[in-house]
């Protein structure tokens, strides 16, 4: 920076630390609450340091679940969330990369029609077609199934465009060299295009994993069995019974568990994540 007066630097860090405090405080206090017995948590004001019930609270929700919401272990819902998040991320990447490959490397009748058809999905989030989409899923017998949680969400205009942009930057000569080497289209795709897309796939995977993990409305509609639902939905289920029997310590433990995987992915893969989010065209 141009100025380097000490008080400007001090102000900068003060503002940033305040921001960090606001951003991390809710998460920290949730963690504190999840490590205390319930009587400590409902005390006013609550304790500011972690307590000694970490193991009790977490083993209870993970292994036995919470009585007021059907005693289904949270471990089951974490597994459901994981299947859904991985399924959505992998599914979106797989079908989008194939579509982009077809659209960029082939010319065929109706090509632009397909392109626009995919584009339109951008304008139709689940939220605007809730009831009829639910009906389709019900008619196809997809309620309370992993297929039902994953399949309707894996069309992706964004991912398709992203791969299309990337393929357009791959030099033509590479495809020509592959043709001279005798590679057919699928061979070129698997041996050359796919390895070259690794960085893009990794970045996209982080973003889509979080997107899948944090899905809310669709799992809320499609899962009615407690043991098919996701951990995010179970957080809400716990909140809704909180007035009957306040179990804030367990609720916060479940909330921590619901946050842990996506937060870990973001922090561990920060480089890919930031690249994929902010500069997707590269």
């Amino acid at each position, binding site marked *: 920076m141009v100025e380097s007066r000490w008080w400007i630097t001090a102000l900068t860090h003060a503002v940033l630390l305040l921001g960090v405090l606001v951003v991390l405080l809710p998460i920290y206090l949730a963690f504190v609450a999840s490590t205390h017995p319930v009587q400590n948590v409902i005390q006013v004001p609550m304790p500011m340091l972690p307590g000694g019930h970490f193991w009790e609270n977490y083993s209870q929700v993970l292994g036995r679940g919470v009585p007021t919401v059907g005693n289904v272990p949270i471990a089951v819902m974490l597994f459901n969330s994981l299947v859904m998040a991985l399924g959505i991320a992998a599914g979106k990447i797989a079908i989008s990369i194939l579509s982009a490959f077809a659209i960029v490397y082939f010319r065929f009748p109706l090509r632009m029609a397909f392109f626009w058809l995919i584009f339109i999905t951008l304008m139709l989030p689940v939220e605007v077609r809730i009831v009829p989409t639910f009906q389709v899923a019900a008619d196809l017998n997809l309620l309370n199934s992993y297929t039902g949680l994953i399949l309707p969400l894996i069309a992706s205009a964004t991912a398709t465009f992203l791969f299309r942009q990337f393929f357009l930057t791959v030099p033509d000569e590479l495809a020509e060299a592959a043709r001279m080497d005798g590679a057919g289209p699928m061979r070129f795709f698997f*041996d050359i295009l796919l390895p*070259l897309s690794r960085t893009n796939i990794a970045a996209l995977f982080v973003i889509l994993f979080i997107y899948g993990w944090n899905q809310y409305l669709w799992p809320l509609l499609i899962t009615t069995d407690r043991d098919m639902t996701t951990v995010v939905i179970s957080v809400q289920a716990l909140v809704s019974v909180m007035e009957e029997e306040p179990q804030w310590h367990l609720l916060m433990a479940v909330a921590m568990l619901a946050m842990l995987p996506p937060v870990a992915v973001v922090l561990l893969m920060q480089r890919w994540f930031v690249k994929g989010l902010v500069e997707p065209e590269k």
Partner: protein
Amino acid sequence: MAEVSFQAVGKTYPGSRTEVIKGISARVADGELMVLLGPSGCGKSTLLRMVAGLERISRGTMAINGRIVNDLEPKDRNIAMVFQNYALYPHMSVFDNMAYGLRIARIPRAEIRARVAEAAQILELTPFLKRKPGQLSGGQRQRVAMGRAIVRNPQVFLFDEPLSNLDAKLRTQMRVEIKKLQTRLGVTSLYVTHDQAEAMTLADRIMVINDGVAEQVAPPLEVYRRPASAFVAGFIGTPAMNFLAGRLCGDGRAVELAGGVRLGLPAPVAGGPMAGGTEGAITVGIRPESLRLDNGHGDLAVAVDLTEMLGADSVVHGRLADNGSTLVARLSGIVPARPGDRLRFTIAADALHLFDTTSGRRLDA
């Protein structure tokens, strides 16, 4: 071993009406290196890509070793190509880059290893086989691209401006290496470039292409000595040939330049633009290096504008005293001519090139 032949080959892009290749016929002999030379946009790369099978042939026939290849896929033509930007697979090691085509052709592993090792040895790439293209210098990448072509033992090599991404010094060096390699392997080759020095050193024969037409197909020295058209004459040689307006006179035994200077010819010229007569407008070409300084008896009086002294040579730019057209002369040694000086030049009668002004074709005795 193979020969490549073109029979009135033409190319029109779909949706366009202009032909970019206008019926080229030629024959590349077995083991010959033919350079396709021309300015950018002349169609030389397109012609090469048609041989490769990367562009469709719109008309005419193309044959490799007598077999018509118009409709064959690139992989079935038994050819290999070196691209301008090398087109190395960035995620594969040097070894894998060279082996890729062989693996697709299901060649046994042991043989792949042997062939790659041999090519690597020829190209001095053995220490780099495990590296990725990104870890190599420009010259090394260029050699990998050549290696990828060599391992396939193709009938024909195609080179698409393979040296244009290298710096001047490396380019001169690689030029010699390519020539040695091609001579040693004896594989029929087509080589595209816009660099005349590259064409002169490498080629067995040069095909000069202009605007989709093969202007001349001949060995380098013949292209230089007897350019078939004014275009070829102007394209080859530095500084470029001088062109002066003139007309034939004296039954085709002499030319008269505008302004009245008369130059004798070694033999009478017949035909050409003066069909029916012997008086007609022509273009006279004079290479700068064929002019000799002769202040006593020189026919051409020149007023000097500028002299470039290059050490071994001096290049004099000036205007003809008689008609004002510009004239460039390349003289050996140091000629301390200053702007405004008057010099006189002579030219040997057999160093004059005559062209039909309208068609641009060469006129000969």
